[in-house]
């Protein structure tokens, strides 16, 4: 068969077999509109609850600035940490469903993060911290974790190359690094090894530690968990805050 004819034939058959009823367009739009309206009404209610949390965070930021400028010591930083509420609820969209997750404050010497302790546990390891599913996954599932590691003597741009080289060993199709602003501001590297439900995925964020170093935050999960664990990990990262040094 001629190449062109074949390609036209493929296109034609796809168009012919994917016809739809024009009324469906209006029907789907009405559902979308109603769903958005409903969720916006819910958001307004949540916004009132969040206002209190925002006030506390703003107060903490002022305290941090004051503390670092005057150098009043670790005691002040400890006071700042205390300003982060120990527990709170954060909104989360998992597989299209909106939910509120209870998160708990975890503090290291250099950062704070709110961990979703309903689903995960936070472990302090030698040289890094690890967030893993609260209940160990059955053996047939690949690893799921989020590792937070500080590299105190290399800036993000310097660390990027090392992490890229390391990841390429397991993820030959590693995507080019992307600069992201959400869930956290920095570099993002993503690799997927395959197209099966259990194909390993690695998503690594590299951010500044506010000094001359970096944090490397490595999420490990599998393809089917892209809308589950991956979303929960990113949601926790939105609450990642650095504690400035004196």
């Amino acid at each position, binding site marked *: 068969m001629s190449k062109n004819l*074949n*390609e036209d*034939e493929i296109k034609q*058959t796809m*168009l012919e*077999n994917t016809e*739809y009823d024009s009324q469906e367009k209006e029907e789907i739009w009405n559902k979308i509109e109603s769903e*958005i309206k409903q969720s916006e009404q819910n958001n307004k209610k949540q916004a009132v609850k969040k206002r209190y949390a925002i006030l506390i965070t703003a107060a903490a930021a002022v305290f941090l600035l004051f503390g670092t400028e005057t150098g009043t010591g670790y005691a002040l930083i400890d006071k700042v940490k205390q300003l982060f509420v120990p527990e709170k609820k954060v909104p989360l969209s998992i597989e299209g469903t909106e939910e509120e997750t209870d998160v708990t404050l975890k503090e290291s010497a250099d950062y704070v993060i709110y961990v979703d302790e309903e689903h995960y546990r936070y472990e302090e390891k030698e040289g890094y911290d690890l967030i893993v599913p609260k209940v160990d996954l059955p053996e047939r599932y690949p690893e799921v974790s989020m590792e937070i590691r500080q590299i105190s003597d290399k800036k993000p741009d310097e660390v990027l190359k090392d992490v890229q080289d390391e990841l390429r060993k397991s993820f030959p*199709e590693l995507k080019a690094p992307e600069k992201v602003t959400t869930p956290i501001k920095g570099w993002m590297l993503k690799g997927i090894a395959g197209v099966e439900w259990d194909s390993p995925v690695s998503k690594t964020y590299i951010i500044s530690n506010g000094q001359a170093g970096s944090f490397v935050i490595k999420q490990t999960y599998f393809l089917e968990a892209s809308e589950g664990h991956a979303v929960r990990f990113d949601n926790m990262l939105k609450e990642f805050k650095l504690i400035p040094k004196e």
Partner: protein
Amino acid sequence: MELNEKKLIQDILGGDKAAFKKLYDIHFNQGMRTAIAITRDREVAKDALQETFIRVYRNLSSYDESQPFEPWFYRILINECNRLLKKEAKIKQLVQAQKTEVNSSNSPKEEYDDLYEAIQSLKDMYRHPLILKYLKGFTERDIATCLEINVNTIKTRLLKGREKLRKLLNEKRGGQHV
């Protein structure tokens, strides 16, 4: 991204609902067709497209405007199609397990031509790139961005997908040259 689309997205981010409706009107036709082809099920396709637009609306602030919009949109659409298909498969399993008598003639089967049937019989790794290329009209680079796969891999999969189609059609059409 075209200037008009960029403006549209900025308007939506600014809370303009009419701009979101415009975006819907622009992308509905090809989005719907793609969802039908990917899911092979019109009802699932409708749900997937609906969820996709809702996700786009909610997550538009995280979309990087320096990148083309469509691969981002279709990545969400394909993820939604896959997610709903899995859900559907679980429900079907449950229903099937509960049914004692199943009359297959109760569920209408759509009639497709040989070529479309052959396309739909391919594995997703070949089927999805072919749908995005020939139905959506994406370039290989757009498909690579959308499916988060290396562009050379996409080229190979398109090539192999077409080879497999040719073989399948040869078999279906009784060995005559196609």
